[in-house]
């Protein structure tokens, strides 16, 4: 039973890191010098990325609430929303999985996290070359002057 619990925690944590590394790698691919991409990747901060995703979800929800007509831009925003929402949730769950040892995990919960991250990967694949997607990547790293 202990081994199962550890596996579930590991699954939740790994799912988060898969998405984290996807976003970091996709961002650093824009850096023209491959030898310094790893160093650039280390500039990303988990908590900051999460806050950026929270804000993005909040901003997108305001747009979605107005029920805009279908458009290519809206479709991209929907996919971005999936990615940002999944990252924010996965960040929280990952911290619980790694540090909140009293929390009990179910297989359903762990599976849902893995499936959600998998869906976020598909969303990213669908929009990765769009300017809005690339701007989103940059926002994960850029310093907010109001901080």
């Amino acid at each position: 039973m202990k081994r199962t619990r550890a596996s579930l925690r590991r699954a939740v944590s790994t799912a988060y890191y898969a998405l984290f590394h996807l976003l970091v790698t996709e961002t650093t691919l824009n850096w023209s010098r491959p030898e310094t991409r790893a160093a650039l990747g280390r500039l990303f901060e988990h908590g900051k990325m999460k806050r950026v995703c929270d804000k993005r979800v909040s901003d997108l929800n305001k747009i979605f609430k107005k029920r805009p007509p279908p458009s290519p831009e809206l479709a991209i925003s929907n996919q971005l929303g999936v990615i940002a929402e999944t990252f924010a949730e996965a960040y929280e769950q990952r911290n619980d999985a790694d540090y909140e040892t009293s929390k009990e995990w179910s297989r359903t919960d762990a599976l849902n996290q893995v499936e959600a991250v998998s869906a976020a990967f598909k969303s990213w694949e669908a929009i990765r070359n769009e300017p809005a997607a690339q701007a989103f990547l940059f926002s994960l790293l850029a310093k907010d002057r109001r901080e």
Partner: protein
Amino acid sequence: MIIPKAFAQPDEFAAAIAEVERQLHPNVVYIRHSLGNDWTGEPAVFFRVLLSDAASKREQLLNVTKQIRDAIVWQVEPLEQWGVLPYFNYRSQSEQAVMKEEAWA
């Protein structure tokens, strides 16, 4: 310091959740929640959603949990109306029957 409305009016917040919960049957058996702060220190609500065993099957799990999240996010509006970021955990009825965790009862 501004106290989020969900903390100031917990009964009203619970009632808003209960209203959505009713719409989510039979996939959702019930929803429990607690208020606190997330790992970045933001006020948050943590939903514990007990799913029927049928709704917990892998092939439909993500669709079901997306419907639940969307229903709560769009109808309750935890952040916009109540000032708390929503987080969701899920468990099937048969898992809870084995785990017997009080917070999920």
